[in-house]
């Protein structure tokens, strides 16, 4: 009930401006009652002049209990913005950090990303894209609080200072909470000056997470935890093949199950609605459904892999080209290698779910989503409402990794279809099996690489053909496909500094249409391009009989920032010194999402099993906000990528996904976690992303280390030694 109670009390407060939770909560700059309407419509509040500055009221609330609530336009899915964005606000606001509270914003135009035209979280964009906006929010609010205090005291604002939640002047001091009501009546300034970075006291300081207390006590509310009066739970039987349809259903046994309320067909399958999950699940188990398999019933990943390999032998569409690569390759005996990666479900710990409550002319949705605007529009479309009639609450996400930024809002739509048949609120829950088999995978990909060296061992030609599916084609984001090239497939190869340094080069995309739904998976195209590029560079280095570090350094002469990160990781890992007995090191460096990460993996092979002991990471992410968060994300990215490199693979036979749960879709476990060290390059460069860039280098770093140890080149993910 907690979630409902909080919502109800907030709404009743907004209507009546009475006490909420024992404290008068003052929305900044517009009357509190207008805040919700404003947030919904995203217009400019009448009390604030139009300007490029953010409307502070939408992003910050200060209560007379001295609480300072930062409202997140993005979602917290583990990456730490619950802490980072408040740090940005407080760099300028000077509030008492121990009073900071955080909540997710409702879906509304005012919360659109500054990097994309929608409200969303992804592409490792949150921190850099909010670096200005959330600081401006803090600075604007501080300006208003100071102005209110100065007016009360009859002094000049410029003579006041602020410290830890107080405005100070001589021996006078007033708390932010006591000033909030007066400050809220003042017009929002049309300009604001942000601190010089040299004066920063918050940004750059290691700061522990603000969401820890609720996440170590079980109090944190994930989508799965939403509880409402009269709430029903639904599970849906989805077709076993992609594009399959229900032919007929015998629901008699399911309907007879205790606790089952109803069974009905929806566009995505057959829904069973019950008092609680267990009854719904038992009901689904009892369904007898005859499925029409649809157009993709013969999909087979072994066959796909072979056909991709064949297609890689001819040109596709050029994403990047220079010189005459065909001629340069035919001049000598080129090195040829093929790399492949499988489909991968994201398998976030929290299975997908969504709760929907309909009412006349409106709907309310609770879900852990990365894609608020898209989901809100999809709900509206299904229910015949306008987007602003759909109130979308973002809960904590039990992991996202891209799966909860679904181009067609698949799991949200599933829930809305169910809700459309009911007069009571309903929570749709996907089981782990639904989650693994529900599609939207990192695409299977085959890379064919060909390279040539001159007689001094310098690379002269590089040809790479990437055979895979487009994520964007045919989606609402198809406009991002330029000249037939989906950038999410070739990123990390077409823009590789290695490729650019080789005089004759060509990177091609061979786009396949398969019918298996695909999506961005932590680091997107880089999750496979870095494996192919960094492995093949390593192969060229060995072919040239050069040290892998030296070979790369020479190729990176025109990319000094990348080279410096590689050198830092190598130095910290002790590259060039003998590794402990029975171990070898491999390295990789990759730029993605505006940041560069290099990793040196130290591995052994024990009883036919690859064991990664230590991973030394260096990152240049430009200006960073929370170094503790940067470290955590690199540790996380290594674990995520290493699990995929060692274990994870989704296979399809006769159109049906073979794997179903964590026993056969394996991910990294604690005993396999290497010791991860992180070295952050002090930098004044533009901020880059941190959530994803640590994932791409780990697979090639490990593969290169295994080659150094055993002489065996691992060209397929997941790795198999025999």
């Amino acid at each position, binding site marked *: 009930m907690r979630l409902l109670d909080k919502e109800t009390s907030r709404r009743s407060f907004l209507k009546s401006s009475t006490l909420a939770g024992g404290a008068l909560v003052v929305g900044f700059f517009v009357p509190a009652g207008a805040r919700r309407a404003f947030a919904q419509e995203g217009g400019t509040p009448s009390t604030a002049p139009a300007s490029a500055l953010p409307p502070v009221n939408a992003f910050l609330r200060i209560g007379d209990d001295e609480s300072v609530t930062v409202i997140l336009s993005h979602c917290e899915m583990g990456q*730490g913005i619950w802490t980072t964005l408040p740090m940005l606000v407080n760099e300028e606001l000077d509030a008492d950090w121990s009073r900071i509270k955080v909540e997710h914003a409702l879906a509304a135009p005012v919360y659109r990303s500054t990097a994309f035209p929608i409200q969303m979280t992804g592409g490792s964009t949150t921190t850099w894209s909010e670096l200005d906006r959330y600081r401006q929010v803090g600075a604007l609010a501080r300006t208003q609080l100071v102005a209110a205090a100065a007016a009360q005291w009859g002094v000049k604002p410029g003579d006041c200072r602020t410290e830890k939640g107080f405005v100070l002047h001589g021996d006078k001091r007033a708390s932010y909470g006591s000033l909030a009501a007066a400050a809220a009546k003042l017009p929002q300034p049309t300009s604001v000056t942000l601190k010089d970075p040299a004066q920063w006291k918050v940004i750059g300081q290691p700061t522990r997470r603000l969401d820890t207390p609720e996440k170590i006590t079980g109090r944190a509310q994930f989508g799965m935890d939403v509880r409402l009066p009269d709430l029903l739970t639904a599970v849906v039987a989805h077709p076993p093949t992609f594009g399959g349809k229900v032919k007929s259903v015998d629901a008699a046994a399911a309907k007879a199950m205790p606790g089952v309320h109803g069974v009905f067909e929806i566009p995505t399958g057959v829904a069973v609605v019950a008092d609680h999950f267990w009854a719904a699940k038992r009901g689904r188990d009892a369904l007898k459904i005859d499925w029409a398999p649809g157009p993709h019933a013969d999909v087979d990943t072994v066959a796909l892999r072979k056909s991709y390999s064949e297609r890689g032998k001819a040109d596709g569409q050029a994403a990047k080209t220079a010189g005459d690569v065909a001629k340069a390759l035919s001049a000598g005996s080129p090195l040829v290698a093929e790399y492949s990666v499988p489909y991968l479900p994201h398998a*976030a710990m929290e299975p997908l779910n969504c709760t929907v409550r309909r009412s006349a002319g409106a709907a309310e949705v609770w879900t852990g989503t990365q894609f608020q605007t898209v989901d809100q529009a999809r709900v509206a479309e299904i229910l015949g409402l306008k987007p602003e009639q759909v109130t979308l609450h973002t809960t904590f996400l039990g992991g996202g990794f891209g799966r909860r930024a679904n181009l067609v809002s698949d799991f949200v739509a599933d829930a809305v279809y169910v809700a459309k048949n009911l007069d009571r609120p309903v929570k749709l829950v996907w089981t782990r099996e639904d989650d693994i088999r529900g599609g939207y995978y990192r695409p299977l990909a085959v890379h064919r690489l060909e390279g040539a060296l001159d007689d001094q061992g310098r690379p002269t030609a590089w040809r790479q053909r990437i055979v895979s599916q487009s994520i964007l084609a045919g989606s609402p984001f198809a406009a991002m496909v330029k000249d037939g090239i989906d950038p999410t497939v070739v990123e990390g190869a077409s823009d590789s500094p290695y490729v650019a340094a080789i005089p004759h080069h060509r990177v091609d995309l061979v786009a396949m249409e398969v019918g298996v739904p695909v999506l961005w998976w932590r680091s997107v195209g880089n999750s496979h391009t870095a494996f192919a590029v960094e492995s093949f560079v390593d192969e060229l280095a060995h072919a040239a009989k050069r040290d892998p570090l030296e070979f790369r350094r020479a190729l990176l002469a025109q990319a000094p920032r990348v080279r410096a990160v590689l050198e830092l990781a190598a130095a910290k890992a002790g590259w060039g010194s003998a590794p402990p007995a029975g171990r070898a090191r491999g390295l990789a460096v990759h730029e993605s999402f505006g940041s560069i990460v290099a990793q040196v993996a130290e591995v052994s092979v024990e009883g036919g099993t690859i064991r990664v002991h230590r991973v030394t990471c260096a990152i240049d992410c430009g200006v960073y906000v929370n170094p503790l968060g940067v470290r955590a994300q690199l540790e996380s990215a290594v674990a995520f990528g290493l699990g995929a490199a060692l274990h994870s693979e989704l296979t399809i036979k006769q159109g049906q996904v073979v794997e179903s749960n964590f026993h056969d879709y394996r991910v990294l476990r*604690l005993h396999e976690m290497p010791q991860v060290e992180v070295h952050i390059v002090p930098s004044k460069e533009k901020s880059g992303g941190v959530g994803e860039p640590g994932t791409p280098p780990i697979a090639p770093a490990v593969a290169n280390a295994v080659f150094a140890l055993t002489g065996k080149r691992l060209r397929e993910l997941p790795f198999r030694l025999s």
Partner: protein
Amino acid sequence: MKLLVNGREHEVSVTDDMPLLWVLRDVLGMTGTKFGCGMAQCGACTVLVDGQPIRSCVRPAAAVAGRAITTIEGLSAAGDHPVQRAWAEVDVVQCGYCQSGQIMAAAALLKAKPKPTDADIDAALSGNICRCGTYQRIRSAVHRAAELMEG
């Protein structure tokens, strides 16, 4: 049946096959214990029964009726069990979804082995998956919790 959860007795009427996890979450409204896999593969649903960690997603509630069940909500009154304090100090959590299970498993380990080695931690916690990969910090927080319990 009567369930004794965190020292409080609850009378519930559910089918004999209903796992403890869903009784806790959907009947008693205690959502701190998480659903991750439904087949004892991920550990997100870990609770203690008479001090021993069990996977509540596969254990029928009927099988533990009358026994002392401890969930994350009951590990400590103020969220300050040494394991929780260590978790906060080491800044372990990310998305947080698996952490109830991790913490319960760690608390059980420390009760059985107040000074666990890395191998003990591997054995006790490799059944608890964390997709955010907080494993390195979990390991370090378990060692820290052992210190806190001793001190």
